[in-house]
């Protein structure tokens, strides 16, 4: 996941707090990226819940990137790149933690025999 978005830096006061323009752009984009997923779930224009789930996750990822660039001002130059490095590292750990947990638990649930007591040792050596 590279956050190398082509953010057109609003020059002028680009020293960590952004500018009025970058805040307003971020606000507008966030508004749109919030409205669409809510609309998809509340008005249900798409009948397939699986597809809607994928779409709203994509919108969430997009909005997180918008916030990262426009509000948190994470970029390649800030603090010599350490901010971005820590951010990407955290993102990787986050994905591993969440996706890994879900993956393991889905397998656990599907491998449970009906009527098997939980906590019972498996017979495989």
């Amino acid at each position: 996941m590279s956050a190398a978005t082509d953010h057109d830096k609003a020059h002028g006061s680009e020293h960590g707090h952004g500018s009025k323009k970058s805040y307003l752009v971020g606000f507008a984009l966030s508004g749109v990226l919030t409205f669409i997923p809510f609309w998809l779930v509340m008005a249900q224009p798409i009948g397939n819940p699986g597809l809607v789930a994928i779409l709203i996750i994509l919108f969430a990822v997009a909005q997180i990137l918008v916030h990262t660039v426009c509000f948190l001002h994470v970029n390649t130059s800030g603090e010599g790149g350490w901010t971005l490095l820590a951010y990407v590292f955290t993102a990787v750990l986050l994905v591993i933690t969440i996706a890994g947990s879900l993956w393991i638990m889905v397998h656990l649930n599907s491998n449970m025999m009906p009527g098997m007591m939980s906590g019972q040792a498996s017979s495989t050596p």
Partner: protein
Amino acid sequence: MATIAPDAGFDRDTFHLIEKDAHDHGEAHASPVLLGFWIYLMSDALIFASLFATYGVLSSSFAGGPAPRDIFELELVALNTAILLVSSITYGFGMLAMDKGKVKAVQGWLALTALLGMSFVAIELYEFGVLIGEGATPQRSGFLSAFFTLVGTHGLHVTVGIVWIGIMLVQVGKHGLGVVNKRRLTCLSMFWHFLDVIWIGVFTFVYLMGMLR
């Protein structure tokens, strides 16, 4: 510069070469504190990662109790999302006013941000109150335990952020916008925007995905 609070660690040792900005304006960016605070926020994100993972694992463990579709009010969640998003931009304008050195404007934006934050927490507490009134308490099912823990932890963070804003209102009122207060306001801005980012995850994974079940 402005007065320096005792043991504010103003003159910390820096362990790296400080690159002077081309336009020098007494920024607190020479301080290692900002990167340190950012690292703290990343560790906080990992706490939320484990809470999200826990919620994901338990999100279908209803124990015969209510499912997300039975208890979530998306209208309230949309309102809360809007409030938090607006509070992000009001804090942003506060930071721009800070750059210009306008004390009154900074205080105004900070106060507005705090009010929006309080509205957010109030709506969340109202939601929790309704749920508990309906018998959807944290001890009802694994899903509800995970839900209250995740959303409650975020709400607690917002509450702490509001307290911090209150402290900074007093600090800015007493000492103006010196290097130290600017640094504190910058840390608080990171904290506040970070909470908005976490909320994106909450409304997507908890509320919207819950309604799709």
